[in-house]
């Protein structure tokens, strides 16, 4: 039988501990109505977690920390662990002893508690929004971002088995973290001089007065987009920047794109704003932004979207600024880890 415990019983042998954070709510927003966003069911997320647990176990990870939830993930994982066969000596799964709010706060608190517990890596299942929440709370713990959301630029679409092997090889020290992790840029949002939040891919300024259903999909609502990086094959708002002036994840700078209606724009591009939704976006001006520079939105009032989701309604009474920061979360380079695994026969059976 497998073991499933709560966090009061975490052992002191922390080098083999990995966290898994899975957002039960990702992939269910309005983009299923206005675009053609797919659905990641709880069953599919649990299947991914099962593959992760198996792979982490193979690398020698002995304990996995998870967040309790009311979304059905914790319940299914507990059931799966409890019904393991007697031959299955998989890792112990430990649920953090935290109050569940059934919202984004759970992800933030869970990531912070995992970091405090000394996990060596956190695998994060979600879209850009979920990755953003973890990035703001995980400190220097490297993350493995896996895509289960709608517009996914920061997380990779990877087979969980391979992601689990990579995370496990780093967590168990078989591959030195310093050699296979990279530090990412973030955009920091400040309101009235105080740090308020961050984004891992983009901060957008919208004319919309209301946060509403959160997702942004109407180009006519957009006024500016700030990006940490912009890939030409990206989906979502950063695709606007990626199609006019790509910026790599490793470049020291980011980009600010000022938008205009297609009638007034210098260039109008067809941009993949959401899955199945390719719309004309007018671009007026593009400018590199560098670390430390303070950027102020042009609009006196509107909403601020972090990684594609409207989060803040602001008026002219609030002073909003955006700043690029190179000191974002560390991520594990799965390709590099697996290359090392092959080169050094790290998965060889003794």
């Amino acid at each position, binding site marked *: 039988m497998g073991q499933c415990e709560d966090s009061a019983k975490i052992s002191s042998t922390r080098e083999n501990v990995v966290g898994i954070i899975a957002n*039960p*709510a990702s992939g*269910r*927003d*309005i983009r*299923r*109505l*206005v675009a053609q966003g797919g*659905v990641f*069911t*709880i069953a599919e997320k649990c299947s991914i977690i099962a593959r992760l647990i198996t792979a982490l176990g193979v690398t020698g990870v002995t304990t996995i920390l998870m967040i309790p939830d*009311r*979304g*059905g*993930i914790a319940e299914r994982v507990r059931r799966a662990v409890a019904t393991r066969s007697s031959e299955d000596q998989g890792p112990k799964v430990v649920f953090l002893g935290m109050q569940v709010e059934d919202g984004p706060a759970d992800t933030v608190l869970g990531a912070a508690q995992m970091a405090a517990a000394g996990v060596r890596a956190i695998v994060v299942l979600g879209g850009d929004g979920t990755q953003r929440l973890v990035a703001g709370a995980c400190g220097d713990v490297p993350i493995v971002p896996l895509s289960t959301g709608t517009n996914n630029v920061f997380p990779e679409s990877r087979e969980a088995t391979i992601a689990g092997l990579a995370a496990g090889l780093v967590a168990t020290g078989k591959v030195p973290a310093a050699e296979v992790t990279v530090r990412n840029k973030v955009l920091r949002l400040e309101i009235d001089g105080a740090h308020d939040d961050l984004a891992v891919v983009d901060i957008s300024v919208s004319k*919309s*007065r*209301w*946060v*509403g*259903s*959160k997702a942004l999909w109407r180009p006519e609502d957009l006024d500016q987009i700030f990006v940490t990086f912009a890939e030409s094959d990206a989906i979502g708002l950063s695709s606007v920047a990626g199609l006019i002036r790509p910026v790599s994840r490793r470049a020291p700078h980011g980009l600010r794109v000022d938008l205009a209606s297609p009638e007034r724009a210098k260039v109008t591009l067809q941009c993949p704003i959401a899955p199945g939704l390719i719309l004309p976006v007018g671009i007026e001006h593009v400018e590199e932004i560098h670390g430390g520079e303070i950027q102020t939105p042009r609009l006196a*009032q509107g909403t601020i979207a972090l990684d594609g989701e409207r989060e803040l*309604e602001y*008026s002219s009474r609030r002073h909003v600024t955006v700043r690029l920061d190179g000191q974002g979360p560390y991520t594990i380079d799965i390709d590099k880890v697996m290359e090392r695994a092959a080169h050094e026969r790290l998965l060889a059976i003794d």
Partner: protein
Amino acid sequence: MDLTRSNLLDAYRIMRLIRVFEERLHLEFATGEIPGFVHLYAGEEAIATGICLLLDERDKITSTHRGHGHCLAKGCDVFGMMAEIYGRKNGLCAGKGGSMHIADLSKGMLGANGIVGGGPPLACGAALAAKRLGKGGVAVSFVGDGGANQGTFLESLNLASIWSLPCVFVVENNGYAEATSSKYAGACHDFADRANGFGMPGVTVDGHDFFAVYETANEAIQRARRGGGPSLVECKVNRYYGHYEGDTQSYRGPNEVEKIRETRDCIHHFATRVTSAALLKQSELDDIDREVAALVEDSVNQAKSAPRPDLTDLLTDVYISY
């Protein structure tokens, strides 16, 4: 999301009207004067309001046990509703339906329903009629999380999908089907997930947030009007009272409702946001509060003094002769 000042005032007025109406019924039911059961909608006002504001005279809705909010948001007469709930002759259904069977076909309100999951098949019929009429009408089926576990609901999703009906299924997931947690009773976390299996889009939205409901419903309704077919909108929400009046709610956590009232109240959040954005003045909201309080007071007084149906009414309005 285009919302004029007039829209915002209407939204506040309807939400406040539902709240005051329900809180008054909470008090009045305890006096024993109201026959039958009542199931109060307080706490869920943003859903009915955010959706029904987008509907017009072409559109039909079907409701649940908890139907007062849907009725008021769809424009049913407050006096007729209160009289109906009191079982009076001048009620919307001549005092014979009561809270759980309240209906006003002239307003497109096809009825609260004593059958859990009874509304979705009716909405499919209304949507089929709307499709045949070709005037862009839609049907909205409100259903609870308990109703969403009924076969009627799933059959209706299927029917709506294969016939591409202009129907929007709104699951008001308030966490409990009577006393049973939806986490226990539903083999899914989000009822929106079920839409995928029937080939229609499913969206989960915060049912406490008028703006989120309105924006999402607008897309679903416009899609249906354009001939895009059905969709499912799940609104996660909480109710402030028991399943029915008199429910001791022993299945709820200590201070659960108090905490929700303090932190998630849809009317409070709406008022704060529209006044912070300087779109409405607090004095305008205060005027609406006074107007609504007087309206509900009048409706209760009139209902109490209205005559009940008499014996000669026993078999009228009950069966239709074709």
